Each structure stands twice: as C-alpha cells, then as structure tokens.
C-alpha cells in the first residue's frame, strides 16, 4: 500500500483492449552444425549416455518392483516408486545448460531429474571441487563405500558412481543414501550439485522454489531456480500462489537498486496425466499449460511449449529462459511436453489409457531418436551405442548389488532419526557481510517512542501506569526483530501488510523506516506461498520471518506448515537447516473465523518448535531465542495481549539482548495449595482466579505459564504438582483436543501418586466463537476456574457455582459433540 503508487479512476475506467502476444509451441529447429559447434561431440554423446543410464535406472526399479529382481539380484523393495521412463530427454535436456549454482526442485517423479542435474554438474565442475563435495558430504560415508567398492577410472566417474549409489541407497532407505534413507524415493536430492528437495505433495515445490528464488535474489546469489512440477499440479492453489508471489509488480516498481524479479522458472513436466486424470480433455481446461502464463503477468511469463522429446530443444529453451531470469525479467513458464511410458506407480494397471497410445509414444522414444540423430551425423556409431548399453547395465547392476547389501548399506539406527528432527544450532547470522539497514537507531520513530515507555507495568508504589505509557508486548516483538535484522544480513520478513501498515497489529511499525524493501515487504494474500516460500528461503540457508495474520488462516497454509516446514530437516538427515520463524496471531473479538487457537494442531506435528509467550518479557526473550536458532519455530501471539505491559519481571523488560531458555515453563506466581497451568492469554484469567482463591479461602495457587509447547520440560510442573497435589490447566483453545490435555495426561503419568484429584482441563467451549459481546460465554473466565476447582478438585466452603463445570455436564456436552 505504498502511497507512491496511486490508483487513478480515469485510468482504470478507460475503454481499451489488451492484445496478447502469441505463444510459441515447439518452435525449436535443430541445426546440427550449430549444435555440434555449441556442445562438441563428446557432450552430445554424453547427453545420450545420461539418458540411457537414467532409463536403465528406472527400468531396474520397475523390474525390482514387478519381479523382485534385477539381473539376477533379488530384492524386496517395500516402498512405492514413481518412475519416469520415457521422460529422459526432458530431464537431461533441462540440465545441459544449467550450472551447479542453478537449483532444480521437483516432484515425486524426479529420479531422472536428480541424476541428470548431478551428472551435468559433474561435467562442469572442476575436479578439486568435486572431490571436496564428495569428501564433505555426510562425513564421507557415501564416498567411503563407493571408493572401496565402485571407484571408477577417474574422479568424474567416481562422482557418477557416487550419485548412482547415493540415489539408489536413498530410494532403498539405506543409511548410505543422500539423506541416510530418511527421504526415500520421493524426497531424495543432492543439494551440492543443485538438485534440491523433491516433493511428494503434488505442486509442493511450486511455492518452495519461489522462496529459493527469493533467497538468490535477496542475498545476491548466482543462478536460477526451476520448479519441475507436473501438468496436473497447475490446479494446486500453492502453485498458483507461488506464481503470484514470484510475479509481483513491486520487484520492478519499489525495490529500487534491488529491482528485478526473483529468478523463478516454473517448468511443467507435461506428461498429460495427473495420476490417471487427463489434464488435456478431462480434468483441466487450459488446453495448453503455456497459456496460463498470461493469467499471471503482462509478459505471459515468457511462456512457451518445448518439445521434451528432443533434449537439444529443451537445452535451448532453458538457455534462453535463464538469460531472461538473470536479467530480472521473470518469472518464466515452460510447458515441456513428455510422456511416461511407465505407469504412475507400480500399482498402475494403465486402465485409463490405451495400449495403442503407449505404443505410439514408444515409437517416439527419445533415446532411440536422439541416438539415431547422432548416428546419422556420424557423431556416434552403432557399436558405441551398444557399448553404452552394456556399460549402463553393468553400472546399474553394480549399484543394485551394493545398495542391497546390508553389510555395506545398512539401515539407519533409531538415533539417526531422532537426532535429525532438530538441528539445534546457534546461528548469529546466516548471511555474509553487514546487514543492510536504513534508519534503525535513535532516528527511528518507533525506537524514539519506545524509549519514552515504562518497561514495567507498575510504579514504585505498585500503582499501574496508564496503558499509553506502557512498553507493550508488540514493542517486545519489534525490539527482538530489529536486533536480529541488524545482526543477520540474510534475514528477511514478509507477509500481508508487513510494510507501511506496520503489520496488522502494529508489531512492525518502525521496521518500514528501518529496512530496505527486500528485507521487509508485503505479499499477495497467499498464506500457502507465504509459508511455503519461507520454507524454500530457509532451506537455502537464509533466515526468514513470515506471518499468518490470524491463526484461522492456517488452513490456507496447511501443507506448507504441516508437511514442508517441519519435515525437511529430518528428511534431509540434517543436511538442511530450517531457520524459519512463522508468527501466528491468535485473534479475539473477530468472530468464528478469526478467533481460534490451533496450537494443539501444530504441537502435534513432529519437527516443529512451538512457542506461545504471554508477557512482554517472554515475547522478547523467546523471539530472541527463536531468531538465533536453526530450527522451524511457530511463534504464537495472542491479540488479547499486544497492548499489555510487563507485570512480572520487576526490573522491567531489559533494553538489551537476552534469551528465555527453550522449553522452560515459568512460575508466574508461587504457591503451595493448587497448581494452575496456563497457555497464552488465559494466564491473566488464571491470575484473577488465584486472587479470589487467596482472598476467600486463603488458598495460594501456583500459576505456571507453559510458554512452550514443544520442546517442553515437565520438571517444574511435576515439582509443583508433587507439592500441591492439585492441578488445573486452562487456555483459550477449544477444550476438545486442547494441548493441555496432553500436558494433563503426562502429569498424571509422571506424578500420579501425588495427585489429590485428576487434572482438570479448561478451554473455550467447543463452539464457533460468538461475537465480542458474548465472548464471556466462550473463552474461559476466572469464575469458570473457581467453579472447576470446586467441582472437580477441592470443594470450597460456602462457594456457589455460577457456571456448570461438573463431570456430568462435561459428559453431556461430549455426548452431543458440543
């Protein structure tokens, strides 16, 4: 919403038409002399060889899946494999003109792309660099096997064997795979050669790769980023969202000397089927995917259809498009046609396509036609092709022999998986060089404003300061972010209304003045792409802070937050780090679709660290802690608390840097008689209830703020429960499935013998959130806590309940599902 860009009614209402340029389809015309001149005969032959070995690799897997054996080696492979036999020209051709610095992301059907990209990098890198990569990867574990069992005649052949063995070991879930077998067929990748994570979720790479392109753009890294996704994936929301994020006008209008779009190429590997659905004629309406480019930007994404049956046509297209991207004129859409002769997966009986169709494509087999092309031009002889055939069969046989040998290629131990879940590193900065900052010192208006505020909520006599004078929760968020921005030059933040507006809840006010555009910018309303691109940015090695304006929008980013953000560190066996903080604001007073606390959903997801501070002191210290780590963090904030001052740290929220220790709950008020455990804003309701318990019954409640959901140290809570024997847990999340039930269950287990009553869990009613005027019917109130103590834990003398917290009522509600 920059004021420099004006929406002019006269312009928008003018009578006009838009003329679209034509979209080229299969325009490549082979010119052998030029091709020979450009690539040389050995490179042209290498293209054929690469295609042949990829075909053999896939045929081998097909044979193992269907017959349980390959060339006499028996093996029972339990996991599905999605093969790409028939698509070799598209994948090998794509990599001919890419360098190791160029990234390709892919799909569940990416074996050919991994091999093609790595083989291409092996041809272009110098030997010492290759040596360095192989030695350093996973402490040399893969190299040691290959060196002693499958060395080859030189370093490049050694590297080829390394890639074959590392890929197949990964597919067979071996500890000697690229990712120690934790990724498998659908997720294997080898980042040092530019083969980036492949995704088992259709279209999953569509927004992650945009984040990688943003990483290259923002950190001025060389190379382009390609997302290889299927033709059916164009129907997936996150792919579309990624396109809009990659095509924003602001890259040209607002980013100043950083002008230019991120180098993002969406390559549709168009094999005309999404599983069995026919994208042309049945399940989609675009006719030709290249057409979609004009739905994205006036350049039509420079889209064209490329003949993916000719590797040289694909190589030519990539070379031209790469130039466009490096000039900042992207994004680009390619519609690379191809055909998979194999089924979708081993269970595919090809019930959806005719044998005639498959046969007609067998006639078009790119390996035969390209081999013939080279032979006709005397680049290669039939004898040499036959020798290639023998060679690839022998290499794949040897690879299978090694990868199925349990002694050489064992499965990973339990400990390997456990330690891969989090990287737990302290990273002051992921970037190189100084952080690019604008006005962030005393000249910054927000900094000036904060300097006049009271960092503790009460004066010396215990009297509260007026709200307008308080240093608040949102100030704490701002201070923490500003500090890390100044330290980590790779750090960027984006989301909806982050710049100019200052974040929907004012946390980012002042950051607009402090940061250049590429470090703080507004995005389309695309929660999926906001989170997904954050994943891509972080896994490339940059720190990103992205946000969901309301927790209720989490559903829009479900795949990104559930499947991508938590999983990649472990699926990469720790090769990748994920320094991504996702701020999620929990609403109130905004009705049913803007007031939900879904913390339990995220705590459930393995691989996420989940935090939920409730005080300014904790907000700053916990965000500081999250922003210096290497793991994905969900950072919940309650909109009830943005304006609250610090009521606990008597010396006030420190101006300097500090961290709250990870996973540690905090005793906000000590007591001996009953433990009240809270999460989020319910802390303040619990304190109000504790006051009543003290005044009326002389009961001292110990109030513990959980602060963290995962990781979580139960020790302080166990000690408290041992002392009091009585525990009530309360948060604003709906009661059914609340994370506090998990805590209650663990406490029951850890401190059973000390309990005087079963732990009581209070949450919001299992309803829609009603209007602000009726919220006291929905969110837990202090009197609910008193009534629950009376009904469920410790009958209070002379107490008359005003709400029904009884077990009987609870059963009734459960029976009705409300």
């Amino acid at each position, binding site marked *: 919403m920059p004021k420099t860009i004006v929406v002019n009614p006269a312009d928008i209402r003018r009578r006009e038409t838009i003329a679209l340029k034509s979209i080229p389809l299969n325009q490549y015309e082979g010119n052998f002399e030029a091709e020979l001149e450009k690539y040389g005969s050995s490179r042209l032959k290498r293209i054929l060889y690469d295609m042949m070995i990829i075909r053999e690799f896939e045929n081998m897997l097909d044979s193992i899946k269907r017959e349980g054996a390959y060339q006499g080696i028996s093996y029972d492979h339990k996991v599905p494999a999605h093969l790409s036999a028939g698509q070799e020209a598209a994948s090998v051709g794509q990599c001919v003109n890419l360098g190791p610095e160029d990234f390709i992301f892919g799909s569940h059907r990416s074996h050919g792309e991994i091999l093609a990209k790595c083989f291409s990098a092996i041809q272009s890198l110098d030997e010492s660099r290759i040596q360095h990569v192989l030695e350093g990867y996973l402490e040399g574990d893969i190299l040691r096997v290959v060196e002693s069992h499958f060395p080859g005649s030189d370093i490049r052949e050694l590297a080829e064997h390394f890639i074959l063995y590392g890929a197949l070991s990964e597919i067979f879930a071996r500890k000697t795979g690229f990712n120690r077998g934790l990724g498998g067929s659908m997720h294997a990748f080898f980042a040092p050669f530019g083969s980036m994570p492949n995704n088992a979720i259709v279209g999953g790479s569509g927004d992650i790769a945009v984040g990688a392109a943003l990483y290259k753009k923002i950190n001025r890294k060389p190379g382009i980023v390609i997302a290889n996704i299927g033709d059916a994936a164009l129907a997936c929301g996150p792919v579309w969202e990624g396109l809009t994020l990659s095509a924003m006008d602001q890259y040209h209008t607002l980013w100043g000397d950083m002008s230019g779009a991120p180098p993002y190429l969406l390559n549709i590997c168009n094999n005309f089927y999404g599983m069995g659905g026919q994208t042309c004629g049945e399940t989609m309406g675009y006719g030709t995917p290249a057409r979609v480019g004009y739905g994205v930007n006036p350049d039509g994404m420079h889209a064209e259809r490329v003949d993916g049956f000719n590797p040289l046509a694909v190589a030519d297209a990539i070379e031209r498009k790469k130039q466009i991207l490096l000039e900042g004129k992207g994004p680009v859409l390619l519609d690379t046609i191809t055909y998979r002769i194999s089924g979708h997966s081993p269970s595919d009986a090809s019930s959806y396509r005719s044998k005639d169709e498959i046969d007609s494509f067998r006639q078009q087999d790119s390996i035969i036609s390209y081999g013939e092309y080279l032979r006709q031009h005397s680049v290669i002889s039939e004898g040499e092709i036959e020798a290639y055939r023998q060679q690839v069969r022998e290499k794949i046989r040897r690879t299978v022999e090694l990868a199925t040998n349990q002694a050489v290629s064992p499965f990973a131990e339990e400990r390997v998986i456990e330690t891969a879940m989090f990287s737990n590193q302290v990273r002051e900065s992921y970037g190189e060089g100084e952080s690019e900052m604008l006005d962030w010192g005393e000249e910054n208006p927000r900094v000036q404003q904060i300097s006049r505020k009271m960092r503790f909520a009460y004066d010396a006599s215990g009297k509260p300061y007026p709200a307008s004078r308080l240093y608040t929760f949102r100030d704490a968020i701002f201070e923490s972010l500003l500090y890390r921005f100044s330290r980590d030059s790779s750090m960027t933040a984006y989301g909806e209304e982050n710049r100019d507006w200052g974040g929907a809840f004012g946390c980012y006010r002042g950051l607009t003045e402090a940061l250049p555009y590429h470090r703080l910018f507004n995005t389309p309303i695309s929660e999926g792409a906001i989170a997904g691109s954050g994943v891509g940015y972080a896994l490339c090695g940059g720190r990103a802070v992205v946000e969901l304006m309301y927790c209720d929008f989490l559903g829009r980013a479900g795949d990104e937050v559930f499947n991508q953000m938590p999983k990649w560190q472990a699926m990469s066996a720790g090769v990748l780090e994920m320094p991504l903080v996702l701020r999620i604001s929990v609403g109130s007073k905004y009705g049913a679709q803007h007031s939900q606390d879904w913390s339990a959903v995220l705590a459930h997801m393995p691989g996420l660290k989940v935090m939920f501070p409730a005080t300014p002191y904790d907000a700053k210290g916990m965000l500081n802690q999250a922003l210096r780590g290497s793991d994905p963090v969900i950072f919940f904030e309650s909109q009830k608390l943005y304006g609250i001052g610090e009521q606990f740290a008597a010396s006030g929220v420190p101006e300097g840097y500090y961290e709250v220790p990870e996973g540690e709950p905090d005793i906000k008020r000590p007591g001996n008689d009953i433990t009240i455990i809270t999460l989020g804003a319910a802390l303040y309701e619990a304190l109000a209830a504790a006051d009543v318990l003290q005044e009326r019954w002389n009961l001292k409640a110990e109030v513990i703020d959980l602060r963290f959901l995962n990781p979580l140290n139960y020790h302080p809570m166990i000690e408290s429960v041992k002392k009091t*024997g009585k525990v009530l847990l309360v948060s604003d999340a709906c009661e059914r499935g609340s994370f506090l039930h998990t805590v209650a269950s663990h406490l029951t287990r850890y401190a*059973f*013998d*000390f*309990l*005087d*009553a079963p732990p009581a869990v209070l949450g919001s009613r299992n309803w829609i959130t009603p209007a602000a005027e009726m919220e006291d019917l929905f969110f837990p109130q202090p009197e609910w806590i008193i009534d629950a103590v009376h*009904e*469920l*834990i*410790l*009958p209070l003398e002379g107490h008359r309940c005003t709400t029904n917290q009884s*077990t009987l009522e609870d059963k009734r509600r459960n029976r009705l599902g409300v």
Partner: protein
Amino acid sequence: MAHQVIMPKQGNTVESCILLEWKKAEGDTVKLGEVLCEAETDKAVIEVESTASGTLLKLLCAENDEVPVLSPIAVIGEPGEDISSLESADAAGKPADAQPQELREEIHRKPPGDVPMQTRSGLKGVSPRARNLAKKLSLDPSEVSGSGPEGRVIERDIFTKAASHQPLTPAARELHAREGGSLPRHGSGIGRRIRSADIAESKAEYRDIPLSRIRAVTARRMLESMQQSCQLTLTSSADASAMLSLRKRCKEEDGTRDITLHVMVLFVLSRTLGEFPYINAHFLGDRTREFAHCNIGFAVDTPRGLMVPVVRNAQDLTISELAGEVKRLSRTCIDGKAGTEVFEGGTCTVTNLGAYGIEHFTPVLNPPQVAILGVNAITITPVSDAQGRIILQPRMGFSLTMDHQAVDGAPAAKFLQAFTQAVESVDQTAGI
C-alpha cells in the same frame, strides 16, 4: 494306625527349624526313609525323612513355619483313617507360639494404609495422594469420610482424621503439613501433645531388620563367650617368606593348588598343639580337659553368616589331605548343606581375617575351648638381619586369644613363640 512324623532334633543346641519346602503333598504315597521336606537349622539345611510308610494324610506345618524340634509335622496312615486326634500340632506343643516372636520376619503383614479402594459401602474412592498420606500416618482411609468431589477421600480428609487422633501443637501441625512424613505416636508436650521438636526427632531414618536364625545364635554365643570367660589376646608375628615361597610352588601344580596360606597355618597349628596340651583344651569350670587329638575349627564366612566347621584329627592329615578337607568343609557350609556334626567336637579354632588386610584383632573364644588363633595380614616390615642391617621382610601377624581362667600369659606366650617359629620353617615340615 496313623503315625505322626516329628521334626527330628539336630544336635544338642538346635531348638527349632524353619521348614523350607515340602517335597511331598497330602495324598502322596511315601515310603519309610523317603525325604518329606527340607528344613533349615541355625547351621545347615537338613532333609527330614519319613518315619513310616503309607499315605501322607495331613501336613501340619506350612512352608516357612518355624517348627520346634520334636514337634509333629505330618500324619501318615491309610486313606480315610480318622486322624482327628493327631491333626493338631498341639499334640507336642504349639509351634506358632513357641517360637521367639522377635525372630519372625514380618514380610507378610500389610501396612494399614494399603487397603482396597472399595472396602466400605458409600466410599467413592481415595485419591492417590490421600492414600499415600494415610499410609504414612498409619491411618485406614476406609475409616475416613471423603469431602472431595463426589465423596472422594482427598488429602485434607486424611489430615483432618490424623489431627483428631494425635493432638499436635499448632507449630507441629504446620510443620507436618509442610513437610509430611510420619508422626510419632505421642509427644513430649502437655498431655502428650506432639511438639514440632518431637516430629524433628522422629525423622531420623533407620530400618529394622529382624535377626536371621544364624545371626541370633551367633549373637547369643558371642555374648555368652564374653560373659563367661576371661579373655586375653597375645599378638606376635612370623617371617612369612617360607610360607610365600611354598605357596608359590604349590600354585604351579594342580595337585597342590589348594594348599593356601590358610591351610599352612592350620597345618602348622596341628603339628604344634601336640606339644602344648594346655592350649588344645576345654575349660569346664571345675577342671580343664586336654585332648589327645586336634580337632581344629576354622571360621567360614557364608551367605548365612559365620560358620565354624571342624577338621577332625588334623594331626594325622598330610598337608594335602588337610587342604582337601578344608575345601570340602567350606563348600558344604557355603552351600548350606553341612550337617550339625560338622560343627561339633572342636578342640581349638582358627579365624583368619588376613585376606582383608587386617593387621591386628582380638578373636572371641568359642567356649569351652581355651584358645582361638587369629590370623592377620602379611605386612612388609623392616627388620634387622644377622649382620644388623635393616631389611624388608614379609611378616604374618597372629593374635592368640586364650581363656585366662585356664592358662596364664607366659605358657600361652611360649606356645605362640613355638608356633611362629614353626611357621617360619613350614617349607621344611610340609613334606612337599
């Protein structure tokens, strides 16, 4: 006519046995001399044989019962026979009441707080915390009315109950509420009120362990020994070089490997005692009894406690025979299979703590024996040689306790001197 099997008497000192295991069940056919059960005396495990043939009609004792010797344990006869007159163990005394109460292990008695939840109608349950507190305070939660949700007995109900039974001073109540723990039965305050000081005192942590049979016997004998004799201990030492070189030689061959330093001491003692009959003797109050043979007892540390088996006619055994006998006796004691005869008839005793590095101790006499020889560790000691030079020598210490009622210091010292000299030439006398 049915027949009662009685617990046989095992030696002079055994008063009762613990029945370990029945080998036969009621209804089994048994023959005369067949083993009916195993029982444990203070020194050994014995097998009780059937004293009749027929059908085992009734077992009168349960496993782990302590049974006085000579009391009936089983009835054998013809099936269907009327044995009512023989069924009661009373026929020869009441085993259950005859045994010393303090020797029983109280492993079966349930703590009062550990009761099933639904022991009283209307009780809705007891919280784990209340249950544990009741256990600590020796209260029965089933006698407490619950004030918790749905009538559950909760912590405060137990406190209320405890307060009604044991008057506490306010300070004591506060201390107890804060720190928990058990309360003394009564206190030192007015009207036996429990004061906080009483609680603090009662917090000393200890554990009562009932005496085992063997411990109890040992305790009694040791006390009697100290009360009824006049014990004096003499200490000396001997050059152990000869023993060590002999031991080294013995270790090299299978046949002599059991000839340990301990065996050598027993051997030398068996050869020395003949010259000193007043040491190889019993003191019988109005006389002493000197023995012509040497029955040497030696102390064995077993899992059941201290045992002292006896090597008979040690003076006639070669050192190899002696070694074999020591090994056999030790093993039977450790396995708990030694019969009471193994422990009887000793004329003198050796006790050896040298292996634990003990340099000097005062052995306690095994009355009515007149002497007991304690064997100490070998220590490296500076001595002067024939030329007056200081050299280092391995020396083994000996502590001889004798009953001054029977023998004076000087004669005992003469014996000890002769013994230590004999030790120094054991390699010459051992005959191997």
